């Protein structure tokens, strides 16, 4: 047999076998390293099997529809340079020989308007694998954009064992149809619709060991800065609270301590994130909701304030879409969401750290040997101890406190 074996990798979620539902390549087809070559369905999800190397797929040893154990050989590949696929233009080709980045049209009924289906093709998203957040599970533009972003992210950081296609989340029967046509759902911290039925396959956060770090920032100067800037923000129609300033401090510190701006999958593979998407946990009637400010590090303060205000308002009203609560790389829990001072919350989703803000209040602070009442902000940081070193956690808290207590320093790195 020509070439090296292609074996079925770990499927995640504890699955030891899966059904190979479809081959995505023909024998003789050249593939790039990591290119999806087959789809395998487990009880929980559909996952794409990546090519182990660039080369030519020489054999498919398993028929579509067969059940395969993890580690079993499913095909063979002759390693070598992958060639661009656009040479297909001059050769009579099978229907499957569409350009590699082209997504097909699902055979089954899709509940999404034409412009959304077209957008999915434009972004290279297989719409059959997109979970709809609209009434009855209808797929909207935001769902497709979120799916595109999810698919794009793993490529930032080297090979990962799997790209969950999310397909299993989409089965018509499972798509929260019990809620009928009630509009967007409130969203829980994990990004799932709060009312989604049992059996949803979003991986439960694995029980991870985490360590905590606590400190208190004196925020008299931060409050003074806020008061100074507020009238100017008001001119732009934005009310400036302390929260966007705190988020700015967090973002600046994440740039200094990037280990906390990362995600980690079930296998413990760390994905160091370049983009900074800050999730803001807010208490709602339906539990915590976590709207996400995308690319928060590239957002000016006044825009950050406007966006946070809008997201928090809508989160409290239960009007967030799933897409707006997806993709956080770091989470900040807001004051009042939980307790008054210190609290350690489990780290949500695949993030490696979570910062909880206590209530800002006058508390006794020792200054120059005297106890004085000062505006203070209690901070509680939880980190995934597999990924984040305690010294990094300490450095982060120290950094945030530093920016909060000398907020003018934020200007140095201001965007």
């Amino acid at each position: 047999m020509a070439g090296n074996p292609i074996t079925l990798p770990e499927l995640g979620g504890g699955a030891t076998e899966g059904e190979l539902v479809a081959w995505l390549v023909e024998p003789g087809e050249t593939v790039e390293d990591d290119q999806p070559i087959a789809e395998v369905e487990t009880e929980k999800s559909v996952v794409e099997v990546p090519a182990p190397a660039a080369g030519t797929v020489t054999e498919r040893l398993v028929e579509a529809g067969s059940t395969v154990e993890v580690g079993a050989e499913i095909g063979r590949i002759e390693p070598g340079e992958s060639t661009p696929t656009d040479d297909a233009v001059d050769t009579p080709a099978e229907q499957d020989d569409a350009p590699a980045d082209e997504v097909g049209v699902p055979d089954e009924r899709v509940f999404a308007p034409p412009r959304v289906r077209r957008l999915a093709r434009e972004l290279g998203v297989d719409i059959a694998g997109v979970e709809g957040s609209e009434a009855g599970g209808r797929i909207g533009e935001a769902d497709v954009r979120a799916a595109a972003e999810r698919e794009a992210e793993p490529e930032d950081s080297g090979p990962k064992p799997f790209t969950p296609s999310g397909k299993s989340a989409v089965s018509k029967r499972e798509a929260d149809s019990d809620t009928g046509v009630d509009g967007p759902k409130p969203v829980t911290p994990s990004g799932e619709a709060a009312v989604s039925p049992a059996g949803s396959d979003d991986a439960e956060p694995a029980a991870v060991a985490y360590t905590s770090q606590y400190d208190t920032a004196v925020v008299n100067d931060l409050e003074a800065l806020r008061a100074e800037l507020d009238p100017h923000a008001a001119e732009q129609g934005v009310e400036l609270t302390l929260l966007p300033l705190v988020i700015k401090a967090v973002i600046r510190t994440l740039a200094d301590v990037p280990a906390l701006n990362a995600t980690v999958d079930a296998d413990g593979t760390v994905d160091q994130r370049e983009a900074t998407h800050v999730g803001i946990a807010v208490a709602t009637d339906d539990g915590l909701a976590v709207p996400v400010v995308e690319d928060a590090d590239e957002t000016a303060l006044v825009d950050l304030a406007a966006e946070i205000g809008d997201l928090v308002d809508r989160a409290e009203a239960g009007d967030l879409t799933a897409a707006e609560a997806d993709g956080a790389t770091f989470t900040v829990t807001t004051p009042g969401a939980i307790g008054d001072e210190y609290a350690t919350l489990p780290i949500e989703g695949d993030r490696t750290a979570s910062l909880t803000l206590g209530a800002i209040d006058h508390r006794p602070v020792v200054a120059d040997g005297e106890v004085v009442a000062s505006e203070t902000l209690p901070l509680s940081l939880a980190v995934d101890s597999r990924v984040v070193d305690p010294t990094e956690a300490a450095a982060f808290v120290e950094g945030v406190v530093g920016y909060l207590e000398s907020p003018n320093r934020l200007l140095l790195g201001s965007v």
Partner: protein
Amino acid sequence: MADGETTDTELAIIGAGPGGYVAAIRAAQYDLDVTLVERDAFGGTCLNTGCIPSKAYITATDIAHEASNAELMGVSANPEVDLETMTEWKDGVVDQLTGGVEKLCQANGVNLVEGTARFVDDHTLRVDGADVESIAFDNAIIATGSRPIEIPGFSYADEPVWSSTDALAATEIPDRLVVVGGGYIGMELSTVYAKLGTEVMVVEMLDDILPQYGPDITRIIRSRAEDLGIEFNFGEGASEWTETDDGIVVESETEAGESSTYEADNVLVAVGRAPVTDTLDLGEAGIETTDSGTIPTDDRMRTDVDHIFAIGDVAGDPMLAHAASKEGIVAAEVAAGEPAAMDVQAIPAAVFTDPEIGTVGMSVSEAEEAGFEPVVGEMPFRASGRALTTGHTDGFVKIVADEESGFVLGGQIVGPEASELVAEVTLAIELGATLEDVASTVHTHPTLAEAVMEAAENAAGQAIHTMNS
């Protein structure tokens, strides 16, 4: 081949029917250099010998028929039909539309070539009968359409034997017409001639008309056709015809070998249409057809040769003008590098019988087969105020939806203006609308369209003008 007679183009399109001309204009909108080759008439079968002329005759004969059957409304008339004038009017409509197609193409910068094209290789066409002898193309779209199928013993070259094209260009109204085939073309033209006073006999191999539809629909159409005087003989295939002193005799046979004979003046053969792919030398371009002559395509309308597309009737079912146009738009956009695909959720179909049929998406049984648990809402036109005022109350609107999610899956409409009404259900399907979305949309009163809303309400058990079962 003389160099001066070769033209280079980014996109060559063969056939200027509703697939080809629409593709040409869309491609030109994307700034492709487009050459459109037509060997017969711009507008293709649809505009010249299909949809448009048949609808002209259907409307004209409807007016005559309605006028002479309106005593109940206090109108008595005995209209005189002048076939020559009717045909001139029809020709005028066709000329206006085909002329419009030509002007639109030119205004969009499409190069028009009149001639017959065939492939020399996968980047070259040879054109006969035109100044341009040869076209070198980057991409090509095959849009050559279809032609009426002939059956053994019935040659369209013989004068008494009509194809649908001949039936739409008759110079005399026959006293007696045998129609072979009870599909939609046979039924539409049977209705036209019955309303012109012709005795019509339909001979159909199967045991019902309109095989794509269920008995809930065909029963209404057949019953109305019989009221118009159309006779049906099912389970028979036409085997031959002979000329007599008094016209012709058409002989038919059952499967068991029993034969019958029908006297007539003409026989219309309407047993389907076959793709026109035999004139193209497709093999030279590396393209193979199926046994039935259609060209396999993918969801981008590409053939096995990626830069050559096939759209419309040559790409197989459904052989409908609006499907061809959509496929043409997809092919043109893909050729222009756009992320288009033939991803429509449903293609509606209309039959212009009396009453009309408009259907789209899934029937109840199709929805069940697809794994849905369907719910159906129905509104009979006899409960519609507007239908009563038109004098046409046969038929219904049925809307099929997924019970759990409410998503609209399909609609079947029989009745006045069903061909128009089906558009609303089609939009609901494409948008992923639910029954509640349709039911909550205010519809103008008094209109037939209210029946669509009422059917959606009925599915939810909330219809106002019918009892909810």
